């Protein structure tokens, strides 16, 4: 077996999960230590991925069913780091709800493992395996606060709808297998007959399944409820990490086997993108709960990432990856703020609870202000550059309609971000929140805010990193 060391990160993480499970069973009160070890594992895995696989030329393993290239390594590192930060800043929140248990970090680790497999998959079966692994872990995570009705409801809803979409996806896989005789992406790309409608059906079914996972309109219905019901730290996880993996599969699935069928799927992607951007922007206006609002906002943001993918060019892929990276940083900052809204061990998550925040918490509110303006895509903050790259690649392909609709929906979206700022800055103050925050929480907020604010000084760095992604 050659090149087995290339999947060493996955092997390491799966062995660690087993070890932690055993440790959790045999050692009493081990939640803290398991939490810390998990953090370490995520970090180590990220370092291994960075050292071992980031700089190698694309290599396939296990009969070409796994691919290790720059895209996969980069996305894995982002996934691992995002999961690391989620775990890092969620401990206080979990303790408050008395759900600081051993299962939490282990479930996060197993979903991360599933995502890493997804990201590396070059085969429909491997991809499906990874997808199910991460989904199963995510169902449990959604219901993690099981004494709360909303959390259980969120998990159940997510499970039922996700199972449905997995079914559709699997049906699509079977169609493609049936008409090409293979599940391998490379083989499919040489085998399929472009005139065969069943292939198109298969692609559509798989796209529907994937669109569900990234909650693109019109397959987004689960997102607001699940985001609202899940524990906030899990919501943070939901809004970022699974989307990275699903987006990578999107890229890999559309661009490796089916690039020649771009006429067929481009329209679908443009539709998904426009619908998500507009719907996310409009539906968020009426929201009162911050988590629901961020659910709609994330729908809107995924629309922009899809707009990059719809271009069918390398530039588009790169701009989508940049978009997701910046989106993750903004989201981390936003949720750090959300996790700081705590008073006497009660977390507040309504928009009204931010009222007059700027008087009692000037630093917190200025950070949130920067993050929100960045989410709205106002220059010179990072969010603007993210959108700028997307529209650059979209206009390059002369898709003016997509670009104009996208930009107009940023104006609509600006409205609800401004509304939060209005409540923070223009309204009367309420009681102040606790100020004894976890150091890591403060750190994550500070770092993400500074990254967003200072991105314009070194915009080339991220582009340099991402420009090595070369799929086509």
């Amino acid at each position, binding site marked *: 077996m050659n090149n087995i060391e290339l999947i060493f990160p996955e092997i390491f993480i799966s062995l660690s999960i087993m070890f932690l499970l055993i440790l959790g069973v045999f050692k009493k009160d081990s939640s803290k230590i398991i939490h810390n070890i998990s953090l370490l594992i995520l970090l180590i895995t990220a370092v291994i991925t960075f050292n071992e696989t980031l700089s190698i030329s694309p290599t396939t393993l296990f009969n070409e069913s796994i691919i290790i290239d720059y895209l996969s390594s980069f996305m894995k590192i982002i996934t691992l780091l995002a999961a690391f930060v989620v775990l890092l800043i969620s401990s206080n929140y979990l303790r408050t709800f008395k759900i600081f248990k051993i299962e939490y970090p282990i479930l996060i680790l197993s979903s991360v493992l599933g995502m890493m497999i997804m990201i590396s998959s070059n085969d429909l079966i491997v991809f499906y395996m990874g997808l199910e692994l991460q989904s199963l872990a995510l169902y449990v995570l959604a219901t993690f606060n099981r004494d709360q009705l909303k959390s259980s409801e969120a998990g159940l809803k997510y499970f039922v709808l996700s199972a449905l979409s997995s079914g559709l996806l699997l049906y699509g896989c079977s169609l493609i297998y049936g008409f090409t005789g293979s599940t391998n992406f490379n083989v499919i790309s040489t085998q399929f007959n472009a005139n065969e409608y069943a292939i198109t059906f298969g692609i559509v079914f798989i796209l529907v399944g994937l669109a569900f996972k990234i909650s693109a309109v019109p397959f987004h219905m689960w997102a607001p409820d699940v985001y609202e019901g899940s524990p906030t730290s899990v919501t943070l996880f939901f809004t970022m990490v699974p989307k990275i993996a699903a987006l990578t599969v999107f890229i890999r699935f559309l661009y490796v086997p089916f690039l020649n069928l771009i006429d067929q799927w481009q329209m679908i992607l443009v539709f998904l993108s426009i619908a998500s951007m507009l719907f996310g922007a409009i539906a968020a206006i009426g929201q009162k709960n911050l988590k629901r609002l961020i659910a709609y906002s994330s729908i809107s943001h995924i629309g922009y990432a899809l707009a990059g993918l719809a271009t069918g060019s390398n530039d588009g892929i790169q701009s989508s990856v940049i978009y997701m990276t910046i989106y993750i940083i903004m989201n981390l900052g936003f949720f750090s703020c959300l996790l700081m809204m705590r008073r006497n061990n009660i977390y507040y998550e309504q928009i009204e609870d931010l009222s007059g925040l700027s008087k009692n918490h000037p630093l917190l509110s200025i950070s949130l202000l920067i993050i929100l*303006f960045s989410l709205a895509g*106002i*220059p*010179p903050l990072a969010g*603007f550059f993210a959108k*700028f790259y997307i*529209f*650059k690649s979209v*206009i*390059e392909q002369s898709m*003016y309609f997509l*670009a*104009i609709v996208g*930009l*107009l929906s*940023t*104006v609509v979206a*600006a*409205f609800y971000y*401004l509304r939060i*700022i*209005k409540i923070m*800055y*223009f309204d009367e103050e309420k009681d102040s929140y606790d100020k004894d925050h976890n150091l890591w929480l403060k750190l994550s907020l500070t770092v993400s805010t500074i990254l967003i604010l200072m991105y*314009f000084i070194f*915009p*080339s760095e991220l*582009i*340099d990193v991402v420009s090595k992604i070369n799929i086509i």
Partner: protein
Amino acid sequence: MNFPILSSLILLPSIGALFLFFTRSKSENKITVKYVALFTSLVNFFLSIYLWFLFDPTTSAFQFVEDRVWIEGLINYKVGIDGISILFIILTTFITPLCIISVNNSITKRLNEFLIAILVMETFMIGVFCSLDLVVFYLFFEAGLIPMFLIIGIWGGARRVYSAFKFFLFTLLGSVLMLVAIISIYWITGTTDVVQLYELGIDTKYQNLLWLAFFSSFAVKTPMWPVHTWLPDAHVEAPTAGSVLLAAILLKMAGYGFIRFSLGLFPSASEVFTPLIYTLSVIAIIFTSLIALMQEDMKKLIAYSSVAHMGFVTLGIFTNQQQGIEGSIIQMISHGLVSAALFLCVGVVYDRMHSRLIATYGGIITIIPKYAILFMVFTLAALGLPGTSGFVGEFLILMAAFKDNFLVAVLASLGVIIGAAYMLWLYKRVIFGKLINSELKKMIDLNKSEAFTLTCLAIPTLYFGFYPEPLINIIEVSISDLIDTYNFSVASKQ
């Protein structure tokens, strides 16, 4: 020429703002905070004066150019100035310290943050006038929304939330199309560098759409009729310093954009759309002047008069004649001084009486005579009396307009008359007449800082009214070069 003087001008206010950010604002060091801000903006002002001395008005080439790679192969951070932009930079650095002095009475809460917003705003405004790259320009142009939104929203009047949202969303909506146009230009020509674009030119078949996209942004910002409705709201609700910045400088960004980009980059499209601009300008001049006549709120009246004055500016720019564009720039500078002063004048009485309604006042000439005199200077300048800077601009614009289109010029001249009517009527109702409201007797005349700021604005208003030569000297060469290029490319297309 190694010292990056333009970047220093851009960055200095932000550094001052950063310094203020780390100063905890407590009640006792309010004065300190103000002095820090004032010091920063004054240093910037003297730096810009120094820039004026270094500036060579005999060439139309861009000077003090700084060119750094910003995003590899995509955007360069490129700044530089020519005769058109330098005046706006000096205007900005001149108005900002006056704004900071004027916050004395009007801003009581969160002074620290207010000054930060003003300084950050200054950075963005200078950036707009310096940038020689379309993306950099867009960045500064849009970024200015953030501090202005906060200035209106936090320190504004009763309907501040509505006004702040309207301001933000209107201008953002206008600007997004410009972003599409900028990216399109990048894909058509392969660069967003303005100097290179001047040389390359843009294919005529794209120009009309691109021009419209830029127009949508500048028209909202100017503001032109019928998208001017955000301006009265924003002005009325903004605090005095905010109104001053808005009227004096923010509106000039669009006028500057019209000259630099619409005329410079899309000459043949500008030729095509000149009738549109003429129509909208004339409507703006007459219609908003009539609206101004009916206003009961002083700030609203001045806001509508701004729309009318900017109507003259757009009219002058698109006459494409030396006098017209020179007149537009002088009109913009003059309007920058005069409208700033008028808003400060309204601020003065508002601080004392907490009312902006014209009906509240009347007969205050005997109570606050100094104020009455300065207010009169600016009233007369606003209506374009010979001897004030307002006259020079309007006169040049109308002269150019008469050469180009008689009907438009006649209609615009009508606007001058209505302009005189509403300004004089405003002055009459506020200053003269019988003293009915006995509360007014308690009013105190201008204090030192108010008198200082208003005098500072009155001197250049009168000076350039009698002797506009220094201004014209600076802009002359750049404009004649611009017009030559324009005529050449329009002629070569036909």
